[in-house]
């Protein structure tokens, strides 16, 4: 019964968000978010808080598609006649991109791990929580560093700052 109520509220929430979006009415959209919060309560009662959060967020991701699909716009099919060309292989470009890939894949992974562990070690929490926080934070820190490297207007400066941060963290941890 509780699961049914939670599902109904989640469906209602997705509908209100859709109506709020379509009519540009913020009040309706806000009501949608309130319904979603309410659905979390019923998910929590029915399945516990851990499963409840997962089902609450997951079902919303699915339910919104009812409204997305219901109002899709069909455009007349057309094809672009593109010219077929052999693959433009540029050794220099491949080398540069490979080096860049390795930088993101390996160097930034190691730096983000060192930096995160060093930072979390400074926090006054027990070791097991530090480990858990590290496991969750490393991919996020890695993602931020990787993105920073790609969007920066000063790539070399960013690279050096990142490298210095990693070295400082390593010195703090190992020396």
């Amino acid at each position: 019964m509780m699961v049914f109520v939670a599902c109904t509220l989640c469906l209602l929430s997705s509908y209100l968000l859709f109506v709020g979006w379509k009519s540009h009415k913020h009040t309706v959209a806000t009501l949608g978010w309130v319904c979603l919060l309410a659905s979390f309560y019923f998910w929590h009662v029915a399945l516990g808080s851990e499963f409840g959060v997962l089902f609450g967020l997951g079902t919303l991701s699915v339910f919104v598609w009812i409204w997305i699909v219901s109002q899709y716009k069909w455009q007349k099919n057309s094809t672009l006649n593109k010219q077929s060309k052999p693959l433009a292989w540029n050794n220099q470009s491949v080398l540069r991109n490979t080096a860049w890939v390795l930088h993101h894949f390996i160097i930034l992974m190691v730096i983000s791990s060192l930096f995160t562990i060093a930072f979390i070690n400074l926090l006054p929490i027990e070791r097991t929580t530090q480990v858990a926080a590290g496991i969750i934070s490393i991919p996020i820190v890695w993602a931020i560093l990787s993105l920073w490297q790609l969007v920066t207007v000063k790539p070399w400066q960013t690279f050096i700052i990142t490298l210095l941060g990693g070295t400082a963290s390593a010195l703090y941890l190992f020396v």
Partner: protein
Amino acid sequence: MQNTQEITKQPLTRRALKAHSWMGLFISAFMYIICLSGTIAVFHNEFERWEQPQIQESHEIDTVAAERALSTFIQQYQEETEHFHLVFPTSGIPRLVVENDHIAHFVNADGSLGEIERSHWTKMLVDMHLYLHLPNSIGVFIVSAFGGLLCAIILSGFLSHPRIIKDAFRLRRGGTGLQENIDMHNRLSVWASPFHLMIGVTGAYFGLASLLIIILSQAFYGGNNQAVVDEVFAPEPKLEQPLQTPNITKALQYVLDNDPDSDVLFLTVHEPNTPTQFIEIYVQKPQRLIYSENYRFKANGEFLEVGNYEHGPMGTQIVFSFYRLHFGDFYGLPSKVLYFILGLMLTVVSATGINIWLNKRKTKDIVNYTWPAIVWGTPVALVMSAWLNLFVHTRLDAVVWGVLVIISGYAYFQKNEVKFLFQIKTLLGMVILGFVATYIGMFNTAVLSVASLQINIPLIIFALYLIIKQYLMRHHQ
């Protein structure tokens, strides 16, 4: 990469979009294969049952049959092993299995040993998701790195999407396919982003954990990796006992009496036939994401301790929840179906990302022809490997990659994407139907079991949908 002056002039959203495209291109094909195999592998328990549908099923735990099976198994397989396991029908597969580190047997209702467990295809599928069929230590590391980069792609996707609210429910179909791919890609990725981010973080854990352990052990534990593991997970008890056959009935009864609301997953005898041997029973706690709570016993069945994962430190509980959180195996079929749908969304996001890039290019080359081959060829290769698995036990991973190479080669030499898409989708439908027909022929009455029907019926529906849709599209044209 562009020169600095050019980059400086661009707004952040444009730079983020370029970053998003670059990262997407770099991981796309492998990300697609990881996502597709992971989505299908959500039902790995169901596939294991489906590979041997003739095995008798039951949801009851029979302690007498379990003990008899274990003692028969120990007598029959006297080779050296570090563990004996009893996997119970309440673990997700309603069958009792007894195994050591080398071989597994199903157990008949009377406790005698039944057929040998053979789930080669499921194992191949899971290995594809976990290691991309590379050697395990390298594979888990690379796949985990993709998890980390998935987080970066999600972040860059948000930064590069200024119309995130304006387009929240927009979907345009038809046209050249570009708008359709953009809308599908953006809607799916935005609405399911909490799930995708969680998958990225938990996926990264499996490989990054070893790096984390190495750094922590070098920094704080004098290079002792085990000390770091023991800090998070309950360390193994140090025992010295006279040698004896493990009394699993007493241990199992203790758990059934003291924790009746939990589901017993499996029982392990660690270091069997040594003075340090002990019994460990893993139970799944209701409404909890932690993999299990573990009860430990001496060889004579006397209770020792609990692992304390349920009420232990928050960090331990979080780390011990990652498995169920990533694989969606926590609330039976509903959670699996939800994870399947959300996983399919991430798979479509991976595919449409490259479609957008290809569509925006002014010319065509080998990538345009081979990308559809990877997208539709992977499921064809998976079905063909399952088909072959019915007849011979061979390297299924080699079959999958071999078929994928052949399909890609065919697509390249044909150089007609529209025609190729029609052929490959029809082929997928036909291959599925052919496979199911062979399966029915081989397993006779067992095909009417739940283990068989729950996979075969959706497969047939999907195959018919593909074939009819292709036929109607061609007819319409």
